[in-house]
């Protein structure tokens, strides 16, 4: 039983490691900035996730106590990963993307990043916009 459990833990750690490596490899391999953004936001989630599951199982089985920190790490990761990705994507739009590269919105307004007069959005939200 102990041995089976060790195999499970080892498998989880190996799977986590593989996904972390694939995420970093994607960062090297993919050619454009927006494509590179995909590898670390996705492939590493599972890498971190399986390491955390392995840690929870370890404490539960060997130390006989339930550890909750892993759940908190998962929660914080899920809250921060999309926001970081969105910030990087926004920076990329501002610095290196032309308006003509993007598809039309289809509803008559511009994408918020390229709209010179974002009027229908609450002005309180627009502190970060450069007036020039």
């Amino acid at each position: 039983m102990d041995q089976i459990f060790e195999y499970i833990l080892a498998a989880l750690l190996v799977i986590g490691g593989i996904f972390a490596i694939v995420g970093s490899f994607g960062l090297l391999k993919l050619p454009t900035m927006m494509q590179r953004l995909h590898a670390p936001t996705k492939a590493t989630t599972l890498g971190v996730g399986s390491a955390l599951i392995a840690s929870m199982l370890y404490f539960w089985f060997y130390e006989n106590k339930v550890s909750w920190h892993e759940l908190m790490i998962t929660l914080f990761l899920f809250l921060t990963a999309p926001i970081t990705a969105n910030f990087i994507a926004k920076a990329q739009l501002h610095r290196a993307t032309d308006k003509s590269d993007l598809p039309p919105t289809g509803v008559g307004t511009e994408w918020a990043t390229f709209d010179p007069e974002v009027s229908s959005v609450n002005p309180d939200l627009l502190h970060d916009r450069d007036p020039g």
Partner: protein
Amino acid sequence: MLRRLFPHPLLSLLLVVSWLLLVNQFKIGSLVMAVILAIIIPKLTAPYWPNRPPLKHIPAFAAYVLLVIWDIVLANIQVARIVLFMRNENIRSGWLAVPIDLKSPEAITILAGTITMTPGTVTSDMSSCGRVLLVHALHAPDPASVIHDIKTRYEARLKRIFE
């Protein structure tokens, strides 16, 4: 009285639970500390929460979280396969304009986060009227089907939960 102390009951509950999880063991002292935090933090952040996010179906929301976790696992495998086994020139990336019907800002935020965490898509921007999301897809030979998936799989469920 209770309403005044806890203007956002769900937020307060979430804070109590997170504090207890951070402490990692149950003691009366940490419960008291958790309740103090659950009273102070919603008060301090009240300007950012002008109205209560209407979370109507909590079981449906739990089901949504499980669905998203499952999709994240699938997304990881899918992106790993694209990174490892596809030649760069065969990867067809592109921008998608995803029209959304959701109205509440909380629901749109969750939808945008979900899109970023799941199969090969990252939410990048929004139209200035707030009715269209700009999504970048890593490999989307058929953009229409990706948009259809997002709308039926995630948006329809969020609509039921929040509106």
